[in-house]
């Protein structure tokens, strides 16, 4: 019926994605229920602008929508302008390395130099930084050794500018997201203002860091998802596909920068499930339609991101083909890919023999080489003998010589091969101590035995004897270099050489503990392989057989990353930030400078903004509770009130979920946490604030009569704007740099602004 009425007004193409059909008899509810299978006509209630048609009464959404169309463009331009100017202002200051720039700048350089490195985050962020540096003429030569190093005449502004540009999109995205969710310009502008004038967001966008890139992808994914939700009545149209595919691309981007991107994937996943559930309940759709919907989403939100994500890694591995500082973290097979690594195109004797000099690598991924050095275990930690550890880097102290039980002299002629079941003595090449174990408890894993270096020049005692066992082998099998998994069973106690993966304290140089485990389960921790093998008396063969395929590399690099992530445990003297600190803006991070004379930048949120956000969270929960109880109890509410509660529950619910997903998981994490981990959650929190406060102001008519309620609304908005602006004026030196005395000293520019004792500026 509606279709028939409309047809005369429809041009073929121009109106395809627009809705001009006057449907006065359509009530508000029908805008949510499509009535026919013709997708093109199912667009009621979602105008694209320029539509002067107004319906009389029932559709408040139409009214709101139209009234915001014209100023919204202007406001968007304003938001964009302010956003870019705050972020790009003084971008080159300070002209030295700040905080984690030392890592990410360095990694960007590695890409330019094509040197292999190891990092706990996926590569996309650093690749983009590298690319930005490359495009802006940075040559990758700056070493980024430590924070505070002067850049001199390096072209660092390109990398910073790139990050700041991405960071500038955040308020714009927030504006658009809130506008979509609430249909209210005021809500959108509140959210954008909060972000534009937040010193924390400015600071974190201005440096060579992964966070602006990550947040860009997170927000872009959410925006595309929200836009996609709005397209629900135009299934399979071009714009529907566009937003769907964009969501998928941005998800891949977010995950490719940091694993935190997983949270936004969950958010989009939940939203998609809910969406499909809604479609399933729509009886006008056939099962085939629903299958189409399902497949489209599976393609764009699962398959496409996976392909992109894998592509990122493929590029990563192709670009980084030279040996570098990250080699030791990876298995022997992995290393053989890297140009310059001693395993690349290596040739060595194929079978382990007595008299060979070898390095022995633990098979646990990132397990390290068996290592010893001229240091003893400290008093109170087992016997005071030489330390034996596992060490991740290549080092002369990783070399061990394989000896027979008794003789020390190398014989003439062909050396005998070491076979499964043989008894060997492992002598540390540098210190000539034997690998030794005894019934003392190990330093960290108390149920295991201690492993030490003992004896001198190869003379030790019966506790130096180890039985070689090839996993899955039988008596007499030779030990293949690189390919055999070997276990070393201690003869005297029957325990097995084991790398526990725990980091020793300072006395052990923070290397990894090696123990002798009485539990004989076959785990990678107790299995080792022979990596380097030097024996001049044996013929060398080429080891190109090792080359792993792409999937193996991908899997291994992920396991190494996860290990690395969970290995980032708080150290003794480091400030450890707790998740509950974050929303209350309890403590910031020093980006640059400590003393009064230095140029100081301190990452701290604008307290007014953050505390408004915090209060709004509580306010939101209260408002939702009141609204849903009122609905559940069946109180008769006005049209406008119903709309407000719908926006609160749907739009607000989505943002609340986003906040929770980006915040709550940190409570369960054992790794070291920093203040900046909260920023993605803070974006959601700010958008929620915009939406909540707007509805709060609009609900003033619950208490006041019309003219007053309108005044109240305006006054509230103005007060909010003013307090944000004024607090930004007060706190802007946090971002743009402070010099002179510290805040608690007299004569400081920030004198009265140390509102919390824990702030350190």
């Amino acid at each position, binding site marked *: 019926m509606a279709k028939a009425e409309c047809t005369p007004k429809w041009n073929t193409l121009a109106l395809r994605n627009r809705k001009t059909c006057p449907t006065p008899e359509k009530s508000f509810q029908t805008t949510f229920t499509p009535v026919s299978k013709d997708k093109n006509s199912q667009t009621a209630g979602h105008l694209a602008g320029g539509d002067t048609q107004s319906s009389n009464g029932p559709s408040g959404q139409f009214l709101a929508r139209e009234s915001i169309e014209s100023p919204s463009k202007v406001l968007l331009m304003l938001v964009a302008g302010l956003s870019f100017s705050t972020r790009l202002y003084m971008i080159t200051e300070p002209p030295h390395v700040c905080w984690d720039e030392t890592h990410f700048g360095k990694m960007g350089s590695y890409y330019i130099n094509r040197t292999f490195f190891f990092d706990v985050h996926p590569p996309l962020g650093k690749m983009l930084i590298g690319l930005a540096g490359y495009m802006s003429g940075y040559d990758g030569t700056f070493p980024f050794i430590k924070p505070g190093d002067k850049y001199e005449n390096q072209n660092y502004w390109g990398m910073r500018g790139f990050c700041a540009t991405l960071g500038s999109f955040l308020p714009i995205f927030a504006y658009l997201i809130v506008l979509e969710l609430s249909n209210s310009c005021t809500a959108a502008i509140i959210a954008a203002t909060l972000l534009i004038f937040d010193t924390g967001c400015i600071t974190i966008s201005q440096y060579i860091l992964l966070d602006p890139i990550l947040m860009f992808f997170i927000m872009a994914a959410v925006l595309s998802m929200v836009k996609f939700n709005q397209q629900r009545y135009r299934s399979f149209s071009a714009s529907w596909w566009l937003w769907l595919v964009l969501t998928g691309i941005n998800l891949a981007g977010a995950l490719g920068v940091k694993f935190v991107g997983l949270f936004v994937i969950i958010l989009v996943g939940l939203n998609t499930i809910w969406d499909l559930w809604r479609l399933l309940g729509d*009886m006008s759709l056939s099962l085939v339609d629903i299958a189409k919907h399902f497949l489209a989403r599976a393609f764009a939100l699962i398959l496409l991101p996976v392909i992109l994500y894998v592509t990122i890694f493929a590029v990563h591995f192709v670009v980084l083909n030279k040996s570098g500082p990250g080699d030791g973290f990876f298995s022997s097979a992995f290393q053989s890919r890297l140009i310059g690594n001693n395993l690349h195109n290596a040739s060595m004797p194929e079978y382990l023999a007595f008299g060979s000099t070898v390095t022995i690598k633990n098979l646990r991924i990132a397990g390290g080489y068996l290592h010893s050095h001229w240091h003893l275990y400290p008093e109170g930690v087992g016997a005071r003998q030489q330390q034996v550890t596992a060490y991740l880097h290549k080092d002369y102290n990783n070399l061990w010589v394989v000896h027979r039980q008794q003789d020390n002299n190398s014989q003439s002629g062909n050396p005998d091969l070491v076979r499964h079941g043989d008894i060997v003595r492992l002598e540390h090449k540098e210190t000539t101590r034997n690998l030794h174990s005894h019934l003392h408890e190990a330093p960290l894993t108390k149920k295991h035995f201690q492993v030490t270096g003992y004896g001198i020049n190869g003379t030790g005692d019966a506790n130096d004897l180890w039985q070689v066992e090839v996993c899955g082998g039988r008596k007499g099998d030779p030990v293949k270099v690189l390919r055999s998994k070997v276990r070393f069973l201690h003869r005297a106690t029957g325990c097995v050489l084991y790398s526990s993966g725990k980091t020793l304290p300072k006395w052990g140089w923070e290397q990894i503990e090696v123990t002798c485990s009485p539990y004989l389960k076959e785990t990678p921790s107790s299995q080792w392989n022979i990596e380097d093998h030097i024996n001049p008396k044996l013929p060398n063969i080429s080891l190109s057989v090792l080359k792993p395929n792409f999937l193996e590399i991908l899997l291994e690099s992920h396991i190494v990353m996860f290990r690395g992530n969970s290995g980032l445990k708080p150290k003794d003297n480091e400030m450890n930030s707790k998740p509950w600190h974050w929303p209350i803006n309890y403590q910031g991070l020093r980006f640059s400078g400590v003393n009064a004379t230095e140029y100081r930048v301190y990452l701290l949120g604008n307290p007014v903004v953050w505390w408004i956000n915090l209060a709004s969270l509580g306010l939101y929960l209260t408002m939702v509770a009141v609204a849903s109880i009122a609905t559940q*109890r069946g109180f008769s509410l006005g049209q406008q009130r119903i709309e407000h509660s719908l926006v609160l529950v749907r739009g607000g619910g989505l943002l609340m979920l986003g906040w929770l997903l980006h915040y709550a998981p940190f409570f369960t994490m054992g790794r070291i946490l920093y203040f900046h981990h909260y920023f993605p959650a803070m974006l959601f929190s700010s958008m929620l604030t915009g939406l909540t406060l707007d509805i709060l102001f609009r609900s003033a008519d619950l208490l006041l009569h019309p003219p007053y309620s309108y005044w109240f609304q305006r006054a509230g908005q103005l007060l909010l704007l003013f307090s944000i602006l004024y607090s930004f004026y007060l706190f802007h030196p946090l971002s743009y740099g402070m010099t002179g005395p510290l805040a608690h000293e007299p004569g400081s520019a920030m004198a009265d602004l140390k509102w919390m004792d824990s702030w*350190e500026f």
Partner: protein
Amino acid sequence: RWEMLQLPLVVTAQVDLLLVLVSLLAFWTRLSHLNYPNAVVFDEVYYGQFVSLYMKRVFFIDDSGPPLGHMILASGAYLGGFDGNFVWNRIGAEYPSTVNVWSLRLLPALCGALCVPLVYLLTLELKFSHLSALGAAVLLLLENSLIVQSRFMLLESVLIFFVLLAFFSYLRFHNAPSSWLILSGVSCGAAVGVKYMGLFSYLLLLVVASLHTWKLIGDKTISHMNVCVQSVHRVLCLVVVPVLLYVFWFYVHLSFLNRSGPHDQLMSSAFQASLQGGLSRITRGQPLEVAYGSQVTLRSSVSQPIPCWLHSHKVNYPIRYDNGRGSSHQQQVTCYPFKDVNNWWIIKDPGRQQLVVDTPPRPVRHGDVIQLVHGMTSRFLNSHDVAAPMSPHTQEVSGYIDFNVSMPAQNLWRVDISNREAESEVWKTILSEVRLIHVNTSAVLKLSGVSLPDWGFRQLEVVADKLFKAHSSSLEWTVEEHRYGTSQEQKEREAELHSPTHIDVDRKISFWAKFVELQWKMLTVKQEESEHKYSSSPLEWITMETNIAYWLHSSTNAQIHLIGNPVSWGVANLSLLAYQLLAVVYLLRRRRGLKDVPDGVWDQFVCLGCVCVGGWLVNFVPFLLMDKTLFLYHYLPALCYLYLLSPALLEHAHTHLLSSVTHQRALCVGALAVLLSIFLTYRTFCPLTYGSPELSAHQLQGLKWRDTWDILYRRR
């Protein structure tokens, strides 16, 4: 009123014979030969030590759970006349004849036995038939792991009992509103009080209850007033009562354990002073207010790694450290974990020379500037811009010696009472937590937590730190021992320092302060993560990959293992899977408007899922996130939910899924066959459950159904 009472007086009683039967069987399986083996079995060695401490009323702190569980075990011991004189040091140690083993194990066994009738009743409350109820009861009855866990002095059976009771009484209330709700609240409080794990089930119950309340709110036939009253009633019973009870357990715990013991040192000085013996014996009768001239020992508020007192001794910092950095070469100031005469310091007014207390004493207040003089060496506590020995980012603290090298004394410290209530508060012994702020540099005296090397006698390093966290307990110091100094001469003073303290004032801290401190300590005390031979990961529990050897006879092959009944275990997993599949199919079809079952049955089905599958989830998933050492017995609560689920699901399939009579009969026959095989496996594993009769190595080998099980053979 007499007409109310009408003759003849009639008593009608309905007895569910099935219920009585399963209860009797449950008591028989759980309680027979309870005092065999007459030896310490597995974790009895752990809980036993706390029972002993209860008997002796000695304070302890156990981070494994709240005190109710320990109290229940201890009450069993008390009833059996146990005097606490048994050393729990080794699994397998024989109990002497003075220990009444039967009474020690009675209460957990009773709880374990009562779980069986409870499951029966709970199934009825879920609105399934008596036959299903019987099935659930039998599954629980013949579960070897539950029997093993119930028969010893362990807490899981108590926990499961309270959890089941909570759900039973809540559902009873929900089906027919009555006073059962209060019982539900009490059981929740008890469940959380036994083990923190009970919290998961409690939260689930809260969710179920709030869903029901939400429906109630939506019911427009009920007046607003009524809705309010009912909601408040539920909140009172299900939130307020459990919280109050939880605190009450601690109240009993703390008021009962009033003697000092091995765990004292973890607690603050004020807490210790409230215990008999220990610190209160030393500190009894000290003056309360610290005054100029007071002689004090200063205890650091951190008890990690060990509690210690500010200390100095007549040895200087080495001129150069091992790594080549230089020091001030002044007298060492450390933190020393033992009582020592060198821990005494004297509070001095910077403006005056004297080191004795005036009459009347002039108390030190918040914000006052003082000097601290070391009692035995008379050096002033000093700090300066020299890097500390082990933590070079902080300042060194020393006893000042003037070497005449233009390094002037900087020995003024400002007293900052961080737990003050008023600005001019007086510094109080034991109660005040004080920061000493160095006047010249604003650095704060701090225990860095690092041990000094040999030259510092491995005592703990003390530094002054400018960049400190606002609320770190490593900055706080309390006066522990305290007396008013009376001797001006150094010799006299040394004699005075060596003499014990005196005078008499009584001090108490409130229950709430003690409760908060104990609770906080329980949650934050980190026990060293230990590997255990029988520990397992949560995913291994589902397939029962590992067992736990509980006990092995000292000379024969008789042994007890925690091994579940593999057939029931399989049934449980199968029903979990089946329910989820069925639920997904039902949900999708209902969404498309195809209602397979009538609404009433659907509600029943959903309720079953919420309680059983939900119960399994909340008792299983959290373990995946924990990095504690976990054991198979942690899975038992989750398993009980599945046993509740299986027969009910079967009944649902029988009545609503199978239409033809033949299929229904086949299902019944199948169910009977499964029950029979459950019984047979139960019989098969009985020797490992009850520890008798002894089996030969060959028979034991036959019981090793999985390669990963670890069954012990004694070499003959």
